[in-house]
């Protein structure tokens, strides 16, 4: 029987799912995803986590609980640096330890470290060590590694064609990796900024992405900006932030505000998020500077749909009226 590796459907899952999933599959390991985020998952997580943690971290613990009894290994990598310069939020750095010491009776954890500051080869080493841990041969690992990157590159090019991650995964699975560029239609365009694990998790963000589309709004996220254009924004900072995902948000904000390319900006943040205290103010000041309307939505485990929708509707109405 094939080994079963459990992958919590939260945090970095929203960035790297195709890469990790393909790698394990090609290795001949079965990947089991946790349930989609729902109330039960979150409640389980809230019980196990310190109350000061943000809602995505609580959600992650819930996903781990959901998986722990069904798998041989849990995949909770220690992501330190994903671009070779900045680190990720400290909660990612300590994630395997936080989980390990918060929940009892866990299966073995694959907690290999990924720190691209150490050099370009780190990604390969990261996968190689995981492969060896699972007793796979060098060739098998190499082949799986290449297949994984192949899929991942296709996936990223789909994102640039303005597919949402969900849509892109489905297309890749059907091997229709050459989808045409969608022409999202809408009366107005909004840049939806925030970390992938909050804006793409429909439960945490109470369906924000779909609701906006229903209101006939064209929604753009940081994934729709080519990485070259993102990097180009760097020179506008006096000093860069220290966190990978935060830099992505700030850079994409600057990109969308450049011309400006959007009618409004919505920043989605989790209650008590440390880096976002800086990011949010930064983006707010930049929006003020360029004269683009700005809305912050702060989410936690008590966020209700009605309250959120009221605020978003009011914001969208205002933008539509402004357009005339």
């Amino acid at each position, binding site marked *: 029987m094939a080994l079963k590796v459990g992958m919590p459907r939260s945090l970095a899952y929203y960035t790297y799912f195709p890469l990790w999933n393909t790698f394990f599959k090609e290795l001949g390991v079965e990947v089991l995803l946790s349930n989609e985020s729902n109330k039960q998952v979150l409640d389980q997580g809230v019980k196990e*986590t*310190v109350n*000061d*943690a943000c809602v995505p971290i609580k959600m992650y613990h819930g996903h781990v609980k959901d998986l722990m009894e069904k798998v041989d290994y849990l995949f909770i990598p*220690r992501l*330190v640096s994903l671009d070779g310069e*900045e*680190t*990720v*939020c*400290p*909660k990612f*750095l*300590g994630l395997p*330890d*936080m989980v390990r*010491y*918060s929940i009892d009776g866990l299966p073995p954890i694959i907690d290999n*470290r990924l720190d691209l500051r150490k050099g370009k080869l780190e990604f390969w080493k990261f996968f190689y060590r995981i492969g060896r841990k699972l007793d796979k041969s060098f060739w098998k690992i190499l082949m799986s590694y290449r297949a994984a990157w192949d899929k991942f590159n296709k996936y990223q090019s789909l994102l640039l064609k303005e597919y949402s991650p969900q849509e892109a995964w489905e297309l890749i699975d059907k091997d229709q990796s050459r989808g045409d560029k969608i022409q999202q239609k809408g009366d107005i365009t909004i840049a939806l900024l925030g970390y992938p694990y909050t804006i793409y998790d429909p439960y945490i963000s109470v369906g924000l992405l779909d609701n906006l589309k229903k209101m006939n709004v064209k929604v753009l996220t940081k994934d729709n900006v080519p990485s070259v254009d993102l990097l180009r924004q760097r020179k506008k900072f*006096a*000093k860069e*932030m*220290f*966190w990978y995902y935060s830099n992505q948000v700030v850079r994409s904000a600057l990109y969308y505000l450049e011309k400006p390319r959007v009618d409004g900006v919505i920043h989605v943040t989790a*209650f*008590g*998020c*440390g*880096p*976002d*205290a*800086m990011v*949010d*103010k*930064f983006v707010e*000041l930049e929006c*003020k500077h360029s004269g683009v309307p700005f809305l912050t939505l*702060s989410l936690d485990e008590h966020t209700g749909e009605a309250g959120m929708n009221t605020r978003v509707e009011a914001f969208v109405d205002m933008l539509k009226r402004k357009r005339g």
Partner: protein
Amino acid sequence: MKKITFPHMGSSHIAFSMLVKELGHEVIKPPAPTRKTLTYGTKHSPEFACIPFKVLLGTYLEAIEKGADTIVSSGGVGPCRAGYYGELQNKILQDIGYNPDFVIFEPPLKSLSDFMSKIKILKGNNSWIALLDIVRRTWHKLIALDDLESEVNKIRPYELNKGETSKQLKIGQSMLDEAQSMKEIKEARNEALKAIRKVKCLERPEKPIKVGLIGEIYVVLEPFINADVEKTLGELGVQVDRSIHLTNWTRDNTLIDGEKGVKKLARPYLDQLVGGHGQNSIGETIHYAENDFDGVVHLAPFTCIPEIVAKSIIPKVSQDYNIPVITLFLDEQTGKAGVQTRLEAFVDLIKKKRLGEVS
């Protein structure tokens, strides 16, 4: 001539005032934080910025009202947020309509030329040798200030008249404030220490209750923010050992031999730098447990990321080493009475544990 101000952190302003004054600038002493500082700070800060950010911003605003035109602060490389404070505070101040010169010192290892250029701004017309001398004296003043506070923590639990030790500390600090030359600093330090040791004391118990104080540096050092934890514990008859002093990252602390040891201790539980004092908090808890302390008080600002990581791991450490730990997350809503009640309960628990009534 520049009118310079800087962050207020514990009693360090005494030493830094001398530094700025002797470099030939006017000092706008950062006022000790009060309710007003917090009101100013919270009004203009992001909601989830940590309390040190808010207090610093409030302090800057108060100092600007008093005429400061230059703010000197430190930067950092993360992943703790503190390294980004200066950047954002500068933006916020400009948004409100102030335009002070903001001099942020980044670690010299990051960019030496940047570091030197900022030194030159402050150096003015002083020669390099004079600068070196001034820095050296400032350093010794900082050490002297730390020495006084450590001594007070040993005496306060047994003082006969409540408040006597704190009074002597105040007198000692103002003596140090006046001291200028190396000789004067030394004399002031010795005299103040003598006066503190002379405070009338009860007979000391054979095995005093000892508690370690750990956590994020700003909330540990600033009594206004931590509801005067050291004093509160001292007056409950507890001997407090503070893990962090402003000067201990270079000199060997008598108890903890350098930061490396602490990080090593933390490794089995958290083998990764998480920024700020997160990893230290875990290592220090183990350290105190191994040195027969009765408990650990862990202080952190609300929304502090590294300490949240630490807090999720500490319960396991506390269990493995059988040492009680209380974590207090502090913010602008924290009330003194609330902190005091919890500390009293904590000390009661330690006493009961000693009697074997609880395990």
